[in-house]
């Protein structure tokens, strides 16, 4: 179903805002994760992990959900569709993957925030979780930049389903 122009632009505005906001929030998260891993200042390390948990639950998770949902609405409400073009399909798969990875990582984020709230100095047993935050947020940032590039360049290619739909429409329009 093709959305009327007003709703289409609203969905696109929400999608662009949420997606770019997601990138900015993950970049800030990465900066905090690096500070938490590398800093020798115990106060700074504790503050970083408390801020990371807040940022995750109040900024990153809502923006990821809004980006995914508005992206689905935008594609279904336009001629692009959700499964007709490879670039849209690849974007969908990568966004679902990035959101799933984010949800999996909320557990270690909460563990680090709990440790930051309870203890003055981080033990060596948390080092791997601290490293995990840096690697996961760095990889997510790269993935989100790939998604942005896909939206801008829109590399060509229709899926088999999209090609079949195009043929059906041509046959309907043919005299």
């Amino acid at each position, binding site marked *: 179903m093709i959305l009327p122009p007003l709703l289409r632009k609203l969905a696109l505005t929400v999608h662009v805002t949420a997606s770019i906001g997601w990138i900015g929030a993950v970049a800030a998260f990465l900066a905090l994760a690096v500070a938490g891993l590398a800093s020798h200042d115990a106060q700074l390390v504790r503050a970083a992990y408390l801020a990371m948990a807040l940022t995750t639950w109040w900024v990153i998770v809502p923006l990821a959900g809004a980006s995914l949902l508005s992206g689905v609405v935008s594609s279904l409400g336009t001629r692009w569709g959700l499964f007709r073009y490879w670039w849209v399909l690849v974007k969908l798969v990568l966004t679902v993957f990035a959101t799933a990875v984010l949800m999996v990582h909320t557990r270690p984020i909460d563990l680090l925030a709990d440790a930051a709230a309870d203890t003055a100095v981080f033990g060596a047993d948390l080092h791997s*979780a601290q490293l995990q935050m840096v690697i996961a947020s760095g990889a997510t940032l790269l993935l989100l930049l790939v998604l942005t590039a896909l939206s801008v360049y829109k590399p060509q290619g229709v899926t088999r389903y999209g090609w079949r739909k195009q043929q059906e429409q041509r046959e309907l329009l043919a005299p």
Partner: protein
Amino acid sequence: MADPSRPTYAGTPRWVKAAGIVALVLVVLFVVLHLTGRGFGRHLHG
């Protein structure tokens, strides 16, 4: 028998195949790192 005058599907674009291979390599690398114990985050399980 297929109608030769009917257009056929052009196939999967090269960029999708390349991206698929890169994704597969990354997944295999991730699994191998975890199975060999070099992965990060193993202290958090269980």
